[in-house]
């Protein structure tokens, strides 16, 4: 092949495109988070929805307080509170139909409860008598996910499977700002977009991953901007404006249900409490910041809005508080009973059928427990090694 042979044979045309290029513009989030309260949209918000959100927000706040109190009493090993994030938690639960699925992160016990799961079953993980306390299929709520972002591909797979089966099911998956840095976040969003799976990803950007502030987590214009790279729309919302969060999520759910594929929603909010009761937040943030955010509290914002529109009188407010107190009292009472434990459960759920090895080990533990019981009951053997066969 000589130069002369080549001459004129090649046109410097642009390279063939690899796939139809979509316009990125509609995928980009707005520069400012979407809000309802304090905007011209406020008056259009459905009063019933606002009242329902309010009742759940108050209950949610109370639930967070009660769960935190239970850690102090030693009834819960640990509690990652969502105080300050109730608008996101509640909206995520309320926006779904019964047939839809919720994929919560470890902080989202409140969303799980708001979806209808028994609070005691929801807290089983944190009390420590078992891992997942509820039946995921009953309320279509996946187990609370401790390994961050790992629940996101599950949501995608489930939504995809439902669509393959012809079922009208949407999955909503929750994750924190920190969780967006994980590889699983990336892979899940990419699969969702390629498969056009009916999934909504809700990132609660509460400013911190334990002690690590957002600026050390990402340099992106916003987390919602990550959506563009997957070819899905990104939406930014004021996470403390319950009506706004609900609306943006509802839009995304509708979009997914209609076959439009996934959406990434970033809700800007704040973790008012420490990471968990075991954390000391003063090590990494100042009071001033916390106070600023308390001035933008989701419960108070909604309360004020209801009041402004004359949708909440003191009687109604009192009733809401009474309901919340009743829930808390019930939770307190039931959590103050020791759970009944059967150590033999350890062996029963590893496989559908225990392996021969597990049966042996089960037998071993049964014998040990019998020996233990005997040595406690028996007449003063006193030996620590009561079970040995010498």
């Amino acid at each position, binding site marked *: 092949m000589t130069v002369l042979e080549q001459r004129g044979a090649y046109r410097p045309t642009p390279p063939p495109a690899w796939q139809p290029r979509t316009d990125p513009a509609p995928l980009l989030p707005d520069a400012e988070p979407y809000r309802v309260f304090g905007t011209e949209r406020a008056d259009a918000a459905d009063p019933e929805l606002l009242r329902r959100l309010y009742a759940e927000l108050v209950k949610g706040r109370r639930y967070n307080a009660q769960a935190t109190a239970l850690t102090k009493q030693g009834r819960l090993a640990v509690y990652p509170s969502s105080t300050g994030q109730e608008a996101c938690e509640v909206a995520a639960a309320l926006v779904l139909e019964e047939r839809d699925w919720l994929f919560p992160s470890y902080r989202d016990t409140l969303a799980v409860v708001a979806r209808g799961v028994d609070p005691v079953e929801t807290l089983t993980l944190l009390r420590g008598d*078992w*891992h*997942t306390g509820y*039946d*995921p*299929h009953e309320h279509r709520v*996946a*187990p609370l996910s401790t*390994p961050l972002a*790992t629940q*996101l*591909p*599950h*949501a*995608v*797979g*489930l*939504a*995809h*499977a*439902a669509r*393959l*089966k012809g079922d009208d099911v949407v*999955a909503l998956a929750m994750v924190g700002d920190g969780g967006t840095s994980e*590889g*699983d976040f*990336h*892979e*899940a969003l*990419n*699969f969702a977009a*390629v498969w056009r799976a009916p999934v909504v990803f809700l990132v609660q950007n509460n400013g911190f991953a334990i002690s690590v502030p957002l600026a050390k987590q990402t340099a992106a214009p916003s987390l919602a901007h990550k959506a563009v790279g997957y070819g899905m729309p990104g939406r930014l919302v004021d996470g403390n404006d319950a009506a706004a969060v609900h609306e943006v999520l509802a839009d995304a759910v509708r979009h997914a249900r209609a076959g439009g594929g996934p959406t990434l929603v970033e809700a800007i909010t704040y973790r008012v409490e420490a990471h968990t009761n075991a954390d000391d937040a003063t090590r990494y943030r100042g009071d001033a910041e916390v106070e600023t955010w308390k001035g933008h509290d989701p419960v108070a914002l909604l309360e004020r809005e209801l009041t402004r529109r004359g949708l909440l009188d003191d009687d109604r407010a009192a009733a809401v508080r009474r309901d919340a107190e009743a829930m808390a009292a019930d939770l307190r009472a039931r959590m103050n009973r020791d759970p009944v434990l059967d150590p033999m*459960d350890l062996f*029963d*759920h*590893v*496989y*559908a059928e225990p*392996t*021969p*090895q597990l049966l042996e080990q089960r037998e071993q533990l049964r014998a040990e427990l019998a020996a233990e019981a005997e040595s406690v009951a028996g007449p003063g053997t006193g030996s620590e090694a009561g079970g040995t066969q010498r």
Partner: protein
Amino acid sequence: MTTVAAKPATMAQALTRALRDAMAEDPSVHVMGEDVGTLGGVFRITDGLAEEFGDDRCTDTPLAEAGILGTAVGMAMYGLRPVVEMQFDAFAYPAFEQLASHVAKMRNRTRGRMPLPLTLRIPYGGGIGGVEHHSDSSEAYYMATPGLHVVTPATVPDAYGLLRAAIASDDPVVLLEPKRLYWSKDSWDPERPTAVEPLGRAVVRRSGRSATLITYGPSVPVCMEAAEAARVEGWDLEVVDLRSLVPFDDETVCASVRRTGRAVVVHESGGFGGPGGEIAARVTERCFHHLEAPVLRVAGFDLPYPPPMLERHHLPGVDRILDAVGRLQWEAES
């Protein structure tokens, strides 16, 4: 072990047939992975499946192993039976968190309410001249992860049977497919495939009375060869093919060792921390007074898998196995 009216078939063909039969029988079986659709997989195990069952039943995924396994978990949650192909052993590692923290634990975490009927197919082992990261034997990782079944075929009929049993299982099963046996042939009639045996059974591939070779997967043919060669030395070796590492068939293995009084565990995976330790330890625990010599191990060396031109020195071969048999303290007998 093999059907009667049989024509030769390869292990690859048996695996393909198992997938096809499972998909035809049960619409909830979905195959997914890198290049499994149009291409039929780099080893052609999924050949023809996308064509026959459509892209939704046999799906080319994006190139992301954690995403593949993670979405398969979600699909299994919704009642499907995903069969995931990893392209090579070392490329399953990115999915390790999904495997260890979710696949293996989901049933347990949920007190049995959310079982995951999921099959993870991993071509494994060396001997095919692969460049680095293409020849790992990673079974030790999976064995040490409770909640997984771990099985590996050594014969054509077992490839079919184990894959069918894996797909039928209500628990996650890691099926380790010995790469270098993909093209091994056996008389097996794809039109009358063998019945599906339950997982967890070892099989005596060759009876003998001098000593037992305990092995699995790619090392089974090597052990069979070694047993033949050993006759010259006057040893009549029994060969046990484990087939299932989890659950482990103590009964079959120990019955053999009690009979022979001597045993060598043979595998290609690295020795230190490899499956052989577990096997030798549990055989010794159970058969101590029947043993004329310690259970020995012949395994790959404790190093990253070697480059192709050196792999023959790494892989346990006939000589190394016979050396070990020779060290089984025969003088103790006479």
